[in-house]
């Protein structure tokens, strides 16, 4: 598995879309956090809030990048070569998962460096409270990336996986809009269920992290992390369920 992981990492670090994505993450975060550019409704808040706000782009980026990166597994017979070499599909899946999570880790670091530098230039500092909010949201993104990896690994056609991943992202966005209304107007058991659904959704957690969401939508840090871990676990289980018996046609 680690050989596959190493090979994946070499490919990842040379991937032009990943390098470009990291550069964009750095410069965009820097622009927002240094106060050079801001959105009208964020202008009245401290700059750290803008930094937290742009982190949504990480989710969007991985919705598009994961299927693109994983697609190469199914072109040119890569995955068959690996299987002939004695690796199981499960091992390849875990190597890819680890690879994508490492990609997320690297991008988060780049994002934090960009944000920290911008704040430093603007004369503000990264508060530990804001950092913990970002941290909780990134845990949710780890779960989301696992879901994207599973979708991209399960759907062997690039076209199918790209469309599915972007549609899932669009659904998470819709769910935030719908969830905001639902959390605000419901009560009792419906409210509790709505709150859990709102937090399963990665953009819901992002909206809570930005502080723009309803205060009641936040079930507490521990619950948020547990929900994210559950999303991760379910995604991985869905990824490996019956994987060894799968036929590889293309």
């Amino acid at each position: 598995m680690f050989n596959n992981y190493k090979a994946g990492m070499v490919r990842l670090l040379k991937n032009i879309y990943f390098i470009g994505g990291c550069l964009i993450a750095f410069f965009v975060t820097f622009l927002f956090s240094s106060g050079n550019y801001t959105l009208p409704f964020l202008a009245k808040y401290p700059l750290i809030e803008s930094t937290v706000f742009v982190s949504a782009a990480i989710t969007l980026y991985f919705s598009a990048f994961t299927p693109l990166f994983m697609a190469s597994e199914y072109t040119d017979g890569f995955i068959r070569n690996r299987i002939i070499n004695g690796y199981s599909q499960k091992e390849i899946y875990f190597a890819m998962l680890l690879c994508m999570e490492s990609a997320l880790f690297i991008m988060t670091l780049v994002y934090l460096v960009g944000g920290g530098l911008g704040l430093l230039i603007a004369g503000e500092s990264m508060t530990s409270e804001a950092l913990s909010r970002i941290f909780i949201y990134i845990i949710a993104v780890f779960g989301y990336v696992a879901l994207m990896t599973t979708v991209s690994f399960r759907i062997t056609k690039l076209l199918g996986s790209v469309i599915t991943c972007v549609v899932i992202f669009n659904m998470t966005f819709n769910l935030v809009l719908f969830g905001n209304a639902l959390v605000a107007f419901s009560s009792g058991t419906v409210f509790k269920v709505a709150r859990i659904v709102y937090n399963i959704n990665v953009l819901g957690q992002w909206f809570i992290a930005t502080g723009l969401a309803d205060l009641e939508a936040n079930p507490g840090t521990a619950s948020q992390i547990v929900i994210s871990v559950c999303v991760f676990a379910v995604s991985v289980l869905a990824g490996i369920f019956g994987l060894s018996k799968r036929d590889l046609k293309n």
Partner: protein
Amino acid sequence: MLRILYSDLHKIINSRGLKFSLWFCLIYPVVQALVLYLVVHTYMGDELAGEDTLFSYASIGALLVSAAVLYLTVSDFSDGTIKNKVINGAKRSDIFCSAVCGGMFAGVLTSVFCAAGELLAGFIFTKGYEILTKADIAKYFLALALASAAVGAFATMLVMIFGGSFFAYIPGLVIAFFFRVISMRVADKLYPENGVTTLTGTRLKVYTLYDRYFPYAHFTNYLRWDLLSYVIGAAILIAISFILGVIIFNRKEFK
């Protein structure tokens, strides 16, 4: 040109992906209206009006058309059809124009099926249209069809320009999502829930121009402008797609 257009249309009509997307268009509004009906009926004890069902396509239209067009166009590059066409002596501009026409056709087809789904949902779950007349509804669907055609043309242009690399899969879908967020923000500023808009000066002009003439902003659940604005907006985007696309596609190297 006509021969290529014929073959493209033939492919579109027989495409499994498009058929799936059309079925989805037909069923999605009905399912959404059913959920809304259950919520409104059981929670509030109220009846739905026909107008409440006219939002399904508005929320997914641009993305759906982009996805359908991507499915139809990108296979030309992956299975070498484009190269075959060029080898057969077809002009590049003809190949491009025929693909964009196909994209527009797919867009219109998608919107027609979604309109059918929405009308069906209105017929089953609501007590009828309260404010809109038949002419208004027809105008609304016509405006959506125009916007879909323009988005179809633009998304096809993007795929044709970037075709051959992995990158071709992304821009159409991401742009559809991006403009959806922008459109929501613009609508929020131009038509606030309480009172009138607070925008002034250049910003008001830019926002209004965007809202009035940009097809990606036309995926709304009611008509905001006269039909002529929608026609002009769609025509401009289609013209841009053709001109820009032909210029770039003529110089493109096939890998």
